């Protein structure tokens, strides 16, 4: 047992902090900075800031240097996640490209794909969307219907994708389509295509979320084209490619999530100290104290778990299906914490952003937390995976 990072890792922390001190203005760290800006304005600021960060060498922390990464250790990645969250730095505009596409390309992309896709992704020259879900294929991904028909040197693509993050900002989309017959298995005949979204046959429409924002949307393909060379993992191997892609644990460390939610807990605790309940602070209410403490327990367990993950990945262990447990744990904890926030402010939850009563950013998180137990595999899907793949219960 040793909770210290290596000297080299700590050196990296210093370097990153110095850069953040110089390049992340205090005002950008406050929620009010973002409050009065449109989705498009926010996106542009984040995109540019992140590109500058990449230029300074703080992107692709664990990726090989030959593809523009930093070639760092798992410890550095964990430190990066934690420091970015501590500093309230803007979150990435390329989450799906960074978390899923890039590692998949590094595993099974052609040399040409590695050289073109990865550096452009790191520097936000290309914003990537993920096109997996369809109206009839959510948790049951293999029910997907989108068709890609080979005509000469290109595929002609027809179909619809939904819940596409950054649909309105995307330059390209990695997406699953049926390029061949199913031959008795729903998993056969699928390919992962890399399609240019800036073409007449592709139309993105925003979907307004329950939070009021439109971070995701729908993407319609009507005779859209895609060169036959733009397949990742080989034609007909789309299902295997998608499974590999989905196996990449988000960011490989849960420490960033812990840090973000622990900051939220602190804010909820402050709100409890300020909220009056029968003449004394809500923080003195015995029931709320129990609830707040219960969430704190689960949050700190998430922190310990992130150390466990880091220990395993540092030893070169594959997390495998343990990633499902991590996802289940953090998303459910986040949702429970947001319920405790509404318990603290009570009826004032309805008036998000009323000074001294409730907090816009906490309300936003409380709404956002409702999506986290759905996207990336719902809690129910994760429980099935944990039961079958970790505990070994029969299918």
């Amino acid at each position, binding site marked *: 047992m040793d*909770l210290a990072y290596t000297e080299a890792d700590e050196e990296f922390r210093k370097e990153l902090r110095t850069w953040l001190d110089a390049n992340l203005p205090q005002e950008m760290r406050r929620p009010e900075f973002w409050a009065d800006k449109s989705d498009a304005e926010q996106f542009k600021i984040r995109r540019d800031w992140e590109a500058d960060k990449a230029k300074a060498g703080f992107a692709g922390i664990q990726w090989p240097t030959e593809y523009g990464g930093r070639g760092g250790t798992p410890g550095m990645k964990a430190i990066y996640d934690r420091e970015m969250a501590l500093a309230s730095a803007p979150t990435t505009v390329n989450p799906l490209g960074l978390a899923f596409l890039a590692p998949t390309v590094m595993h099974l992309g052609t040399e040409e794909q590695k050289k073109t896709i990865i550096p452009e992704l790191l520097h936000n020259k290309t914003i990537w969307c993920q096109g997996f879900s369809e109206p009839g294929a959510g948790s049951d991904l293999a029910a997907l219907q989108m068709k890609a028909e080979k005509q000469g040197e290109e595929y002609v693509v027809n179909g619809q994708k939904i819940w596409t993050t950054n649909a309105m900002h995307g330059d390209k989309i990695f997406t699953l389509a049926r390029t061949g017959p199913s031959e008795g298995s729903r998993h056969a005949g699928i390919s992962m295509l890399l399609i240019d979204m800036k073409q007449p046959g592709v139309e993105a429409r925003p979907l307004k979320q329950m939070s009021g924002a439109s971070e995701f949307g729908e993407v319609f393909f009507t005779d859209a084209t895609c060169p036959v060379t733009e397949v990742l993992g080989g034609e007909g191997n789309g299902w295997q490619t998608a499974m590999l892609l989905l196996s990449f644990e988000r960011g490989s460390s849960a420490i960033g999530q812990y840090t973000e939610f622990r900051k939220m807990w602190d804010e909820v605790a402050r709100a409890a100290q300020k909220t009056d309940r029968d003449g004394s602070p809500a923080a003195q209410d015995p029931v709320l104290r129990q609830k707040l403490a219960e969430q704190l327990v689960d949050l700190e367990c998430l922190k*310990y778990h992130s150390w466990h993950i880091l220990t395993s990945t540092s030893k070169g262990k594959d997390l495998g299906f343990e990633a499902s447990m991590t996802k289940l744990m953090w998303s459910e904890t986040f949702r429970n914490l947001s319920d405790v926030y509404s318990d603290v402010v009570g009826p004032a939850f309805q008036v998000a952003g009323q000074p001294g009563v409730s907090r816009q950013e906490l309300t936003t998180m409380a709404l956002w937390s409702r999506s986290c137990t759905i996207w990336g595999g719902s809690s129910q899907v994760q429980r099935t995976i944990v039961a079958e793949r970790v505990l070994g219960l*029969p299918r």
Partner: protein
Amino acid sequence: MDFALTDEQRALDDAVRSYLRDRFGPSQVRAVYEDPAGDGDPAELWKAVGEQGWLAVLVPEEYDGMGLGLLDASVIARAFGAGTVPGPWLGTVLAAEAVRLAGSPDQHKSWLPRLASGELRGAVALHRPGSSPVPANAPATAGAGKLSGQLQLVEYAGGADILVVAAADGIYLVDPKATGVSLTRCESLDRTTRTWTVDLDGVTGEKLEASTPDVLQDLIDRAAVLVASDLVGIARKALTETVEYDKTRVQFGKPVGSFQAIKHDLADLHVMVTMAEHATTYAAYAVDADLPDKALAVSIAKSKAADTARKATSDMIQYHGGIGYTWEHDAHFYFKRAKRLEYAYGDAAQHRERIASVLLDGAVDQGHLQTDGSEMSVG
């Protein structure tokens, strides 16, 4: 960053578990269960516990101990929980801890070697059962060096050579055979222990010379970590047994473990058990390393372990169906032991209240984001 047991700790875990598998398995536990009038302290087991050094882990080497830490003791406690092991191991380890932490060099010399070898058995009464686990709830009163009061639910007091008793002004050693001490056996639902009511009526005790409220709190926290470790051992074992049973028990033409209602509940339980394991590991480490957040870590571990063992042992009965409710099945050993330990050294709600008092009754920033040992300098 290495948040894991060392090779030596894993070897210790293996040693305890293989001893239990070969020499003190479910049938030996059952023999203790079926003999409620007996002392609940099988001689062969106690001999092994002493010989293997499992009582000596926390005792310094100069007193014939191993000089290891609470994390090492936690490894043993976890394995003992998984094996629902009876006997005065915990009481003896805690008695030695009281002497080590609060005793003078002379007291160390006279007690530690014999407690480390198993020659002497210890029993402890550190706070009134059911009360918050703080020094203010010491079970005995002291006046002019004489101790009085009723100590309830003292485990293995009947066979103990020495009682450790907390009073308002310090921690005392009491000879169970001294004048003014009377012991009354009370039957415990969990028969992997034996409990006694100890009445003290103006008993002369030997005060541990360096005892302070802080030392008593430390002692109670150490007890809470070992109990949490036992609970985590119970919980993991209950889950594993249930999964194995539900893989093979067939109803409606299928193994019952293939039904989603059971799968999802057990998946949630697996997450809980894993988190409780992490929490007890960290709490033991935080106490060993004397980290600033150790009080928080202890309360996190005890509350999580208590909630987890409750669910695990209830689920074990439920997902075994009717057989799980029978006396002949071992499920009730786990359930009853977990019920006893859930309330020992503070229950989940009391520990959550302590967490709240640490984090809500002052500046929230206190301990804010600094609670991981690696990053104490983070402001």
